[in-house]
């Protein structure tokens, strides 16, 4: 795997094929736990770890799994990995484990995990698959983080509340009270807030894409193309 492939896979996960705002896969946890930055990012990272591990463990055995039973085998492997992550969080990040609750085991049924395994890891090498899973997971984490920040600031007027659950008591003072004495805005915390926030994020991304396209069209024989030609 050369550097360019490496970069393409990352770009795919973070932006072009972002699971949260482009593929729209795995919306159940996305909408449910994105009520604060810490919750969103924690679940996102847990998903990224599971996706990287599942890519890494499924790619090497892809040629030994009969095609007919690949789905049960993939799910079995994903379920094992999720349970391992769950045990580890239960043991070493108890507070967070309690907050994320059912959404940790639900990573098994997050369609983005199986989607990447099926679409990528079952056709590519272990390194690339692990990297693809991790990039996709990070893409999801980014969306969860942004959505969490949006809902937390609007809904509670804070940022990073509950960070002590993830990083221990010493992190308690890291909570930012963005708006002092904020009364709270219930809608942002409730599920509709998540849908509205996600809608705005998707719209924002599409707008950025359109702007980039328009720019590219306005400058026909653009320099980046020339640059690529030289590189090639």
């Amino acid at each position, binding site marked *: 795997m050369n550097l360019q492939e490496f970069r393409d896979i990352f770009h795919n996960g973070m932006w072009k094929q972002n699971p949260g705002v482009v593929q729209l896969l795995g919306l159940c946890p996305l909408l449910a736990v994105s009520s604060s930055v810490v919750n969103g990012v924690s679940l996102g990272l847990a998903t990224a770890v599971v996706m990287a591990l599942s890519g890494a463990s499924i790619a090497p055995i892809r040629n030994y799994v009969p095609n007919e039973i690949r789905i049960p085998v993939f799910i079995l492997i994903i379920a*094992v990995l999720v*349970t391992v992550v769950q045990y580890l969080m239960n043991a070493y990040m*108890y507070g967070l484990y309690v907050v994320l609750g059912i959404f940790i085991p639900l990573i098994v049924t997050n369609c983005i995990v199986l989607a990447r395994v099926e679409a990528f890891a079952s056709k590519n090498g272990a390194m690339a698959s692990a990297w693809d899973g991790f990039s996709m997971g990070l893409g999801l984490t980014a969306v969860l983080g942004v959505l969490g920040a949006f809902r937390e600031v609007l*809904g509670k007027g804070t940022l990073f509340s509950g960070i002590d659950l993830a990083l221990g008591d010493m992190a308690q003072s890291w909570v930012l009270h963005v708006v002092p004495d904020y009364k709270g805005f*219930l809608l942002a915390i409730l599920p509709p807030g998540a849908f509205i926030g996600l809608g705005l994020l998707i719209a924002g991304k599409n707008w950025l894409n359109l702007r980039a396209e328009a720019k590219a069209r306005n400058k026909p024989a653009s320099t980046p193309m020339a640059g690529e030609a030289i590189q090639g």
Partner: protein
Amino acid sequence: MKRIARSTIQTATNLVFFAVIGTAILASVFFMTHDAIVKSEEAEKMKLITQIVPPAMFDNDIIQDKLDVPPSPLLGTEDVTIAYRARLKGEPSAVVLESIAPDGYSGKIALILAVRANGELAGVRVVSHKETPGLGDYIELPKDPWIKGFDGKSREVYKDADWKVKKDGGQFEYMAGATITPRAIVKAVNKALIYYAENREQLFAANAPVKKEKHK
């Protein structure tokens, strides 16, 4: 027919192979993390208990001094719960009970409460609830000191008629717009105190579990 049987066995063997490997991994991680999980669960419980039972009130290993409490309508419980006993120099000083208020605005509210040996409440905390965020969630401690209104109250001080929110003629505060939630909690706490009064002896008994009602 034979072909179906053969391919079934082949495929099943393949599946079993992966299942065995997966189970082996899970079993080893389970045993590796088991002690740490028990420890962090106890630490978490201890954190909650010391919030309502001041450390000065006990010198025993409160987490280990536990007792199975059978389900009881007075506690609102449907399963066996665990009571923790606080003792100071061998004398019972408080007991920590779990109780459930079944009639919250959106379902059950799980409570943990500590009752001093003299029947006075040392403290009450909400363990879990599904009340409306921003409206009924002032029962949680960091959000609002409301729940501390129970500290020091007992059925000596307040008679049955007082164990209501002020709107219903009782003694407890509430917030306009969210009366169902505190109403449910006040009721549950009062019932738990009745349970305590009825079962005081058994609750503090050295190691004899309370077995008045049959376990399910």
